[in-house]
Each structure stands twice: as C-alpha cells, then as structure tokens.
C-alpha cells in the first residue's frame, strides 16, 4: 500500500534531518580535531623553544664557568709561577748585576702583565666583587688607557643588585659592544650609558663608520652579534641597533630588572 502524503512527508523529513545531522556531526568533528591537533603542535613547538632556551642558557653558563676557571688558573697557577721566577731572577740580578738579567726581568714583567690582563678579561674580578657597574667602569678605564680612543661612561639612577649570572651576561653584552666599536668603528670616542629606571637601559654609541646589521647576519660573519642577541633573549631584554644615523652606530639594550 502506498504511503499517504503526510506519512511520506514525515518519513522524508526524518531521513533528511538524519542526513543533515550526520553532516553537521562530521563538520564539527573536523573542526574539533583540527583545533586539538594544532594545539598539540603549538604545545610541542613551545616545548622545543623552551628546551632550546635551556640548552642555550646551559651553554652560556658553562662558557662562563670555564672562563672563570681559566682566569683563576692563569692567575693562581701561571701568574704565581711567573712571580716566583721574577723573584729568583731579581735575587740573581742583585748578586750578579748584568744587563741580560735586566732584559729577562723586563720580559717576565711583560708576561706577568699579559697573564693578568688575559685573566682579567676572561673574568673581571670587580664583576664578582663589586657588581656590573663597577666592572663596566673598570673596563672603560682599561680600554681608554690602552688605546687612543676616548671611552666615556655615564651612569644615572640607583643601581639594583641583580643575580650574578644576569650581571655576567649584561657585562658580556657591553664588553662585546665596546670591543666591536673599538675594532671596527674607527671612532675617536665611544660613549657607554647605563640608566637605571623601571628598566635598565644600556647604550653604546660611537661616531665611526657604522655598519649594516642585516648584511652581517646574512653573510654569517655576525657571530658576536648572534651571541649578544642570544644573551639578550635569555635576559628577556630587547636589543636594537640604530645605524641609520649621520655618523656611527647606537646600540641599545633594554633589560627588565628582577630583584
């Protein structure tokens, strides 16, 4: 017996609704699944980035530990032996009093100075004892005395003591910036500024020839730049180069202060 129109309409409606609901379920499943997979992928990427940052921090820390050890060994071991040799040579000179011994003493003095300088550059003692600002001040004075370049330091605001590992990283950034300016800028003056406000703002400015940051990054010769940016990243700092100036370069690092 053929179904009536109303019976047929009901059957048709139920069947059609069933198909539409099935289609809806499929669409929602696809959306839900895709969202879940993307979240999982993002989470994995986040973990990878965190892992990389941890590895980077571990590498930098081990680098600093190694420098500290080398500095200590140079000073305590080789420095001490050289000082002992100098004492013996001095005693011999007083006994024999010849010019060859004078030359020997001078060479030993020069070697002791070199060893002390290398030891100091590897790990400045003032950084360990007196903190970041004093270490930068000593570095500026040392560079000014050793080269023909005027290295000026301007510090404003009240210094806030930071974690030692952070201070070392900050110091390395400033050290690298000043070294780069000395080596490449041909500038008669280098100005280092340290401003303690809500954030620590460090700038290193020169009046030299300037350089192209992107060119350095692209041709792979910017290893120092890469290290500075990594250190800045670990400190949570922003790092900017301003070289679209009339003369020279200005590098600015803004570091959050953690007490």
């Amino acid at each position, binding site marked *: 017996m*053929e179904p009536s*129109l109303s019976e*047929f*309409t009901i059957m*048709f409606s139920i*069947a*059609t609704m069933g*198909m*539409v609901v*099935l*289609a*809806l379920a*499929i*669409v929602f499943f*696809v*959306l839900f*699944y*895709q969202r879940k*997979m*993307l979240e999982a*992928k993002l989470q994995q990427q986040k973990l990878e980035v965190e892992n990389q940052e941890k590895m980077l921090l571990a590498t930098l820390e081990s680098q600093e530990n190694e420098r500290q050890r080398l500095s200590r060994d140079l000073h305590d071991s080789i420095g001490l032996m050289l000082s002992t040799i100098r004492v013996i040579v001095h005693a011999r000179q007083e006994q024999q009093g010849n010019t060859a011994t004078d030359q020997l003493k001078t060479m030993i003095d020069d070697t002791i100075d070199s060893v002390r300088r290398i030891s100091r550059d590897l790990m400045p003692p003032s950084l360990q004892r007196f903190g970041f600002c004093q270490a930068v001040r000593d570095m500026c004075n040392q560079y000014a005395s050793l080269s023909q370049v005027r290295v000026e330091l301007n510090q404003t605001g009240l210094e806030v003591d930071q974690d030692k590992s952070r201070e070392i990283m900050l110091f390395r950034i400033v050290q690298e910036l000043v070294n780069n300016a000395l080596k490449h800028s041909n500038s008669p003056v280098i100005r280092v500024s340290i401003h303690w406000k809500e954030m620590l703002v460090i700038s290193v400015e020169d009046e030299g020839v300037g350089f192209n940051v992107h060119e350095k990054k692209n041709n792979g010769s910017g290893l120092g730049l890469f290290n500075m940016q990594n250190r800045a990243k670990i400190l949570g700092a922003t790092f900017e180069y301003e070289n679209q100036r009339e003369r020279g370069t200005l590098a600015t690092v803004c570091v959050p202060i953690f007490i």
Partner: protein
Amino acid sequence: MDALEIFNFSRYLQWSGSVIIAVACLPHFKTRGTPIKILGVYAITSIVFSLFQEISVQVFANVGINNIGNAFVFLEALLFGLLYLNATKSRKFRNLVVVTISLYCIVYLFAFLFFEHRSYSLIRTSRDLLMLLLALTYFYYLIQKLPEENLLRFPMFWINVAVIFFFSGTFFLSFMVDYLVSVLKNDLAGFWAFRNVFRFSFCLVLAYSGWLDWPAKER
C-alpha cells in the same frame, strides 16, 4: 500562497543564489584561487541553465525542460569534480577525483541507455553520492594535512561544508524523485520548493567562501 506559488518563488530564490555566487566569485577573476574561479563558472552555468528552463516554461510549454535539468546535473558534477581536482596537490586525492568522475560519466551514460524510466533518480542520486564521497575524502585530507591557518577562514572548508550539507540534505529527494513524480504529481512541488530553498542556502555558503577569497585590500 499555495504549493505551486511557493515552488515558483523558490525557483527565483535559487536563481538569485546563483547570482550571489557569481557576484562573490567573479570580480578580480585573475587574482582568485582556482577553486573560486571554477565556482564562478559554476554560477554562470547555473544562471544560464535556469534561463533555458525559464524559456522552456514560458515559450515552449515545458518542452525539453527535463533534458535541460539532466544536462545541468552532469555539468554540475563535472565542475565540482574539477574544483576538487584543483583543491589539493595530493596525488592520491586527485586520482580519486578522476576515477570517481569517470565512473559517474559511465553511470550517467548507462542510466539513459538502460534505465530510462529511472534515469532521473539514478543520475541525481549518483551525483549526490559522488559529491558526498569527494566532500568526505576532502575532510579526511584536511585532517591529515592540517593547514596552519584557521579552518574557518579557509575558502575550501566552506565549499566542502556547503557540498556536504546540500547533497546529504537532498539525497533522499534525489533517490525518490522518479517515484515522487509518478505518485505525488503536483504535490511534488512542496518537496521541490524545500529543495530550492536548501539550494539557496547552499549558494549563500558558497558565496561566503568566494568572499573569503576576495583580495584583502578590496574587501
């Protein structure tokens, strides 16, 4: 309004749906993605065939109206097949599209050669099955490939949603249309009106996908 008036109104509504797709997909044609270009061609084809049907109704007293409809069904399947062929670079998916379209062409031919009395249902049901198969396979491909972007702003996602909703919603109508024509006669008008309204919403979703593909500067 009686069933016939509702049916006539729904006919013009579905026609306007095709116009909306054309408006959304045809401007800035050269800069659009290939699936959207094909959608634009589909809209033009739909408008043209609707025009032919209207001429047949008004001028030639419905002569050939079924043939026009059947020809459009075939072209629709081909155009959507072409759309899915250009939707991905996946070789497996493209092979599936080619195989299923080829099978559909064979079924279409056989329907008219050997099953003339049921050809109307057969070609529409097989078209619906083809579309549903392609839509489901494309969703599976989306799950596997997981495009980075938000799926809701991905034009092919919305084309696929439109296809899966429309062809699943009208599947039973396509399956039973020969029976409905012979048994219900003019009472079929109500069902066909429902199908036309459903098609209008299908066109709106397709037009939305075209709008998503609109050049960002011009949107």
